[in-house]
């Protein structure tokens, strides 16, 4: 198998991890919506943590993407 083909397959495999990230982001915002639906007054308190959680989960997505690019172009 040529190196080029192996690189493409490797990059494709590396982005499978983004499935978990999709679930994670959905989880974070689902928890936020449920919390605000039960107690609308808590929105201002909970919102910064929601944003923090979203950014942390998105970071994992970017790590997976980084590995994919390193395999593809490294």
């Amino acid at each position: 198998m040529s190196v080029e083909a192996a690189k493409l397959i490797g990059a494709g495999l590396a982005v499978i991890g983004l499935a978990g990230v999709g679930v994670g982001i959905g989880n974070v915002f689902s928890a936020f919506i449920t919390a605000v639906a039960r107690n609308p007054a808590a929105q201002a308190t909970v919102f910064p943590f929601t944003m923090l959680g979203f950014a942390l989960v998105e970071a994992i997505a970017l790590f997976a993407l980084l590995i994919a690019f390193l395999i593809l172009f490294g």
Partner: protein
Amino acid sequence: MASPLKQFEIKSIVPIEVGGIDVSFTNSSLFMVIVITAITLFLVLGMRKGALVPGRWQSMAELSYEFIAGLVRDNIGQEGRAYFPFVFSLFMFILFCNTIGLVPYSFTVTSHIIVTFALAVLVFLGVTVVAIVKHKMKFFSYFLPKGTPLYMAPLLIPIEILSYLARPVTLSLRLFANMMAGHTMLKVFAGFVVALGYFGFAPMVVLIPLYLLELIVALLQAFVFTILTCLYLHDAIHLH
């Protein structure tokens, strides 16, 4: 079509060489100077009037101060007030770097891993030094959380140490990857707009919300870097 990665090229404006090392004034340095000037003008001119009932600029300057002061107070507590100047400078620098980079034809300082790595290592070393100076040898009790059974310690301590050492890596990588990926995506879509000629309005319709998303990401990443710094400082001062 030009490569979307060409926007991250570093071009030297004033070549300076010291003992064989290239320390020239580059476009990255130029934009760092622009960012610092913008922050200084924003805060100094905003507070120029100093009225009791703030006008618009003064409101914005006071809002940014209050936002970070609240963050430091909520996440570090009373001892955290000593670290407020550092956290405030960090937040304003990253925020202005990210947003000034969104202006067309400009350069995003934080889209280079060396810049974000320098900031993250600064935070990591600073937090570790604060913790060691405050707790001396008890600092190493940080790696064994209270109440864990002793048989789990040999497994848990290496994992805790590894996750502690991963902090500067994840901190820098998060900011760098967000900035670089976002700007590359914008450039690729902009390339589509030009390449399609008369049908170029179709990618344009996607490009405008994408720009809004990038603005939100720029603000969010500055906020996340700052709040993580505050949380690490809280860990260092209170040892969990």
